[in-house]
């Protein structure tokens, strides 16, 4: 077996791993993806697939806005529209208190020189979302935002990556990683893989992979819950969130209502299983029927929780490893990584190919989390 047939090994067959693989393979690198179960098994497949710049932390905005431009031409990037519908994202205020929160956010974003968010009154909100409960008083809106279809996105990134020459190995979990001269030797349940560069995009298990590579990065776990209803007649086009409550509400292309908002279920990292907590999920149902009284009698058909890593400050880890030569991290997206997928792959390709990137990623260094651990 040729031991040096590879330039980059990517650990994790989620969307971020696939995006990095795609960008690197198109730049001529020989890339292999190792996936423990199957492509998109956890967070990527369980995602609400919101494509959102609205209300993102300021440090994420530069790359998020670039990602949004990429989403608007996603078909040119991956050969499929990924079900992306730029119907906008709307963050609703239910009362004056909510509205003042949104006004402060609006002022902050404008002050920082960003103009993608817009404050709208009740009349414009009702025009954008006629089905919304009339008690709502206004909203913050990002009109170029929207949502995609997570499975179509996975399939598109997978096919594009494979077409660019990426080899994807499913049912191929990493058991150990060690140095082999200037390379890394990655042991899996099957064969070994050797490459000079490793991308750690292992999602909920990224902390484990990082420690194999010499980085001890403290990570928490998210198990955000989603529910999907039976199909209903067209109800709304934008994705709707609320200022004061955990709710994200949209209608898929198939007509089902997809309801999330970060309500947390339970996760068991060892058995790789996550569980829905219905007492918690009931809060989401209450928010949904409060905001959209007309959907009270629509039936919930499925619910699930997707497992993902979260960091202390809810910002991702993107960049070179502080300790492992040739190691690059992309994980810890803390429940809002879907929209960033196209740009993070480009960032990793920059770092791996050119040792640098023009995009601002200082806030996402692994070191910030490790320092805090040392100080604690």
């Amino acid at each position, binding site marked *: 077996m040729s031991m040096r047939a590879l330039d980059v090994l990517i650990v994790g067959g989620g969307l971020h791993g696939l995006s990095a693989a795609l960008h690197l393979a198109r730049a001529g690198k020989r890339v292999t993806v190792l996936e423990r179960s199957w492509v998109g098994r956890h967070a990527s497949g369980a995602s609400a697939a919101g494509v959102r710049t609205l209300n993102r932390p300021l440090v994420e905005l530069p790359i998020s806005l670039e990602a949004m431009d990429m989403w608007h031409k996603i078909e040119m990037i991956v050969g499929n529209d990924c079900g992306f519908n730029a119907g906008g994202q709307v963050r609703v205020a239910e009362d004056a208190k909510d509205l003042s929160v949104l006004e402060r956010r609006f002022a902050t974003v404008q002050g920082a020189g960003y103009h993608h968010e817009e404050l709208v009154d009740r009349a414009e909100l009702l025009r954008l979302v006629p089905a919304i409960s009339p008690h709502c008083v206004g909203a913050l809106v990002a009109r170029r935002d929207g949502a995609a279809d997570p499975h179509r996105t996975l399939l598109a990134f997978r096919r594009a990556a494979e077409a660019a020459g990426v080899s994807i190995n499913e049912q191929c979990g990493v058991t150990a990683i060690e140095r082999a001269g200037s390379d890394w030797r990655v042991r899996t349940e099957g064969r070994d893989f050797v490459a000079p560069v490793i991308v750690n995009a292992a999602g909920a298990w990224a902390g484990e992979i990082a420690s194999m590579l010499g980085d001890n990065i403290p990570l928490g776990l998210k198990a955000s819950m989603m529910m999907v209803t039976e199909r209903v007649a067209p109800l709304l086009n934008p994705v709707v969130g609320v200022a004061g409550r955990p709710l994200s509400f949209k209608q898929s292309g198939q007509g089902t209502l997809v309801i999330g908002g970060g309500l947390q279920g339970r996760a068991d990292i060892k058995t790789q299983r996550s569980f829905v907590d219905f007492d918690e999920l009931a809060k989401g149902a209450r928010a949904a029927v409060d905001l959209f009284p007309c959907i009270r009698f629509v039936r*919930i*058909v499925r619910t699930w929780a997707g497992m993902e890593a979260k960091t202390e400050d809810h910002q991702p880890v993107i960049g070179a490893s502080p300790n492992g030569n040739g190691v690059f991290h992309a994980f810890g997206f803390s429940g809002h990584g879907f929209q960033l997928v196209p740009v993070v792959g480009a960032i990793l390709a920059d770092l791996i190919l050119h040792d640098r990137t023009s995009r601002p990623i200082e806030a996402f260094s692994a070191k910030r989390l490790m320092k805090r651990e040392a100080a604690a």
Partner: protein
Amino acid sequence: MSRRVDLLIVGAGPAGMSAAIIARRHGMDVLVVDEQIAPGGQIWRNVDAVSATSLGAVLGKAYTEGADVVSRFRASGARYQPRTQVWQVETGPKAFVTCGGVATAIEAGCLLLATGAQERPVPFPGWTLPGVMTVGAAQIVLKASNQIPEGPVWIAGCGPLALIYAVQLLKSGGQIAGFLDTTPPGRVSSNISKWAKATLNAPIDLMKGMSWMAALQRRVPFVRHVTEIEAIGSEKIERLRYVTASGESKVAAASLLLVHEGVVPTIHPTLALGCQHIWNSDQDSFAPELDTWGETSEPNVFVAGDGAGIGGAIAACLRGEIAALRIAAKAGHISDAKAATAAKPIRMRLKRALAPRAFLDSLYRPRPAVFMPTDTAAIACRCEEISVARILAQAGTGHPGPNQVKAFTRAGMGPCQGRQCNYTVAHVLAASEGRPVPDVGLYRVRPPIKPLTLDELSTLGTGGAAS
């Protein structure tokens, strides 16, 4: 906010009622929840109201004898909550239910799932057309509201229920356009040793079955060894086409086609709980793995009745009684030794009740096209309208399991929650990938195990105040 009971029984059919009677006899606090408006389950649906009427006579002795179990159940002191849907079960055991639009949680010392069986889905070209329904559904209408279809009915299938319903329909004054018997040729002769054992143990049941066959063959057009069926029509079924083993193909006018190819255990609840399951090759279905008392791999969760493997009403009652004895012993109401002694004669009766099963299972084993339609244009997932061909195409890309097929085709994502296509997808993948069906397995069950409305879920934990 959640209630607590010693024993929560889901389902007030033969198994659930019998278990409740025994558990109450040993002083347990028992709650029985059931979706229907009256006890009886599918087999004895509405028996309370019907047994003494002329409809009772039409439905026969195997039906009316349920009235005795129902009256003993009503007198047992078990709390009975009808019109209640269990939409989630969890380790604990804990169950989530809705009743009257309000969702609540119930914690139980033990949980007995007596949720019975569902009819095996039968995909064939045109099976989703209006005017095509199952024999079981037609029988529900007969039992619940004494209604029979207007005009002549085609019945196609294999198994006791198709025969019983045909006889009941004739007795009620209904018309049968034809009976398409899909039992493959040579089934009796190739199972002669099982037949001998069965007749020794249950001579009356088998003679009854044969007399139904004889009566039907005399009174209605009876076509044997039908291998393929197709429903044809634009808005609804207008004609049906069938092919027999000898290659004969016929088209006939049809306004209603009832199909039935046996039943399979209801396993959504035990799948949701993460219980171990086994493949029953005699019944071509999965069933929860149970110990001799009916306890699953999940502690304090029991299964009795057809949900434990198809055995019929008498076996269901006996399995319910056996499970209740163990549950009473676990809760300290009787000693283990006493439970074992009390169970002994019940186990003997259970053995006799199950004796004809091997013969029936072999006789009525569905033909291959029931599992995998010959015409791949047939719909596999009727909620999302996904064809067998589409599943096959997906199977061609790598070696996907059912969950990936679901994610990428949407098969199994509709309101039936995969109940109508899970076995079909497993069989298609197995055939395509050259793997055994039990190795392919079924979709992972996502909660809730029954759909509930957003309004119902919104009441959980509020005691109904949010409603």
